[in-house]
């Protein structure tokens, strides 16, 4: 068999490699600086100092106060805490409604479903063909019963950007607590909570060159919040459990680097995404790019090729060494149709063929050129594959 070419990683929206400087910053805390921040002795103090500093550095990246940062295990926990935390307080005040969109990550959508299942109310906003919230739908959903409004800033499947400042402004005016899942937005958009009318904002380490298993939730001072977990008094009781010191430091370093490189990286990724998109559309003219026409983050290209399905495309790509994602991957490893595209009104046969190529640190012009080069052949193969069982 011919030697396989080096794999091309186009799945940065799924996860990213840990940056070298992040790993280096973390290593001492797996070794000599192993202390528990809650200990009063020198080992504890050393860990505490590093952990506090990490919190300050992340706060700095967001324009927040250090005490407004809660460390979590990642985006999913941040989203859960951001919605359930305030909702549990406010449901006792006659506000039992969670408002969100049908295009959210499951870490939000399933929490809204859970709220509905335990006696609260879930309201899903209408979105347009690009997945953006319709103004009139938001207005109609906002009333005195709304506890929390949660809208994702950059969609993880399509890259479409919601107008969070405007949505948050209106939601707040209606008395809602506002959360945004900024897991994909952090490091892509300028975020300054001093000017942004949100109360909570979730981010995740491994999407920005940090380690897996760490995330943060920005919680504006004064936001009512009950913890998800019960235990010690760590993080003011908002998140008990011995702190993940090394990962918190890793998150801080990754966040700082992402913010520092943000504008240059946006331009670099956008140029490559546009090149990839235009080449694919030139070679496969019936391909449909999802979210086209809406403001989009530069690192995600989501498209469907009629006559293929995600499963077939991903297999063809994988065997050619190109690593990408389809719709929402289900537990079994088979690829289901995307709920995001369904909510955007994309027909099912097209939605079930969605392919997400997401660019990032590992992406170079050469990667893009090679993918563009082999894409038509892979589409042909995927079409044969998809046609095999119909």
């Amino acid at each position, binding site marked *: *068999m011919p030697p396989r070419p080096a794999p091309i990683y186009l799945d940065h929206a799924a996860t990213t490699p840990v940056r070298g400087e992040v790993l280096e910053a973390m290593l001492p805390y797996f070794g000599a600086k192993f202390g528990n921040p809650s200990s009063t002795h020198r080992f504890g103090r050393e860990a505490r100092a590093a952990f506090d500093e990490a919190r300050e550095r992340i706060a700095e990246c967001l324009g927040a106060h250090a005490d407004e940062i809660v460390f979590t295990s990642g985006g999913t926990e941040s989203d859960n805490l951001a919605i359930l935390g305030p909702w549990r307080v406010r449901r006792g005040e006659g506000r039992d409604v969670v408002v969100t969109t049908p295009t959210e990550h499951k870490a939000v959508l399933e929490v809204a479903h859970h709220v509905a299942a335990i006696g609260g109310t879930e309201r899903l906003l209408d979105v347009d063909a690009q997945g953006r919230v319709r103004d009139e739908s938001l207005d109609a959903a906002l009333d005195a019963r709304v506890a929390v409004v949660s809208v994702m800033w950059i969609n993880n499947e399509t890259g479409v950007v919601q107008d969070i400042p405007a949505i948050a402004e209106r939601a707040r005016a209606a008395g809602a607590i506002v959360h945004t899942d900024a897991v994909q937005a952090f490091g892509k958009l300028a975020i300054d909570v001093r000017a942004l009318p949100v109360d909570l904002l979730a981010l995740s380490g491994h999407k920005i060159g940090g380690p897996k298993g760490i995330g943060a939730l920005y919680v504006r001072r004064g936001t009512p919040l009950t913890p998800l977990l019960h235990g010690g008094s760590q993080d003011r009781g908002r998140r008990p459990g011995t702190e993940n010191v090394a990962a918190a430091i890793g998150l801080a370093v990754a966040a700082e680097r992402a913010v520092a490189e943000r504008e240059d990286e946006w331009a670099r990724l956008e140029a490559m995404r546009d090149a990839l998109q235009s080449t694919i559309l030139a070679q496969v003219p019936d391909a449909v790019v999802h979210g086209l026409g809406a403001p989009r983050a530069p690192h995600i290209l989501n498209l469907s090729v009629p006559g293929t399905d995600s499963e077939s495309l991903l*297999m063809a790509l994988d065997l050619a060494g190109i690593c990408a994602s389809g719709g929402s991957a289900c537990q*079994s490893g*088979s690829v289901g149709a995307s709920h995001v595209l369904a909510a955007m009104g994309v027909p099912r046969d097209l939605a079930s063929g969605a392919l997400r190529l997401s660019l990032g640190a590992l992406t170079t012009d050469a990667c893009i050129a090679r993918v563009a080069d082999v894409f038509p052949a892979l589409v042909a193969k995927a079409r044969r594959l998809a046609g095999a069982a119909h």
Partner: protein
Amino acid sequence: MSRGRVLVAMSGGVDSSVAAALLHADGYEVIGATMKLTCGDELQTDRPCCSLDSVNDARRVCETLGVPHYVLDLASAFSRDVVRDFAEEYARGRTPIPCVRCNTFTKFRDLARKAAALDCDHIATGHYAQVVDGTLHRGLDPAKDQSYFLWGLAREVVARLILPVGGRTKTETRAAAHALGLRVVAEKAESMDICFVPDGDHVAVVRRELGDDAPSLQRGPFVDVHGTVLGEHEGHARFTIGQRRGLPGGFREPMFVIAIDPARRAVVLGPRDALLGRGVIARGMNWLVAAPPRAGDTVLVQHRHRATPVEATVVRADADTLEVALGAPLTAIAPGQSLVCYDGTRVVGGGVIERGLATASVPRSLPILAA
């Protein structure tokens, strides 16, 4: 140096896992594929195959081998070609074998096409049967032989087929699993049930597919061959030819289901002798040899899984139909089961039993007719 790319259909069980590992060890470029055959996102978790655990086991085996593993969603085609047909066959008063249709349509048509689209030179499974010089033969282990279920393959698929465990006994396969380090699957229980029929309750599948008001699930009479009503049953889909369980009692000799008449929703009962047939007509024939048998030829035929094959004379053979006269009577020839023809251990072809014949016809090409 690779001996070619092979797609291995992996259920997560020991046989297909060993098949993949043996091919990998033999220098093939292995791609593991697990078919998702049930609908819905949540796969059943407590079944020996077709469950999430099975997918995970197949994936673990592929991870151990360092080969790619994919889950292929064939649920809608499987539902149409296998599950729906299964229910409809019961509604027609017949006794289907879904494994035959799964092999014919799902594994060795749909999956084989996917293998071809992935530039695979071969397709492999963990079946206990053997491919010898491009022809299909019984598995070496008579207790495990699955060739009866494989008659529906296209000949060009057999040409690409590798059955790595078909020349082994089950004990040897388990030993190979241990030797190959496949501890996850080495001692897994056998899957004996039909994968989509929970707890062996095929009536539940008929109900789900055809509805509570399906005629085959409504009350009907037990009758004897003369039409005398002997009792009442709760739906003829619950019965199969040769069945004794669930019949009314009080007869002088043991009674069996000898026929099902869906038009009258009647289940016909008779004594053991009435089950004997001396001829069989099968339809939907598929031949795995270049020169199928002709009228007057002698073949070995098998009318049930695990039944002993008997000699038979071909009465009539055309593109679709085979009629044979049996050298010795067979019991409980059930429409819907397979009639598989063998030449020694070689699978010559097969079809679906249309009906058994109480008396054998005389082959047309014999001199007595030609005269």
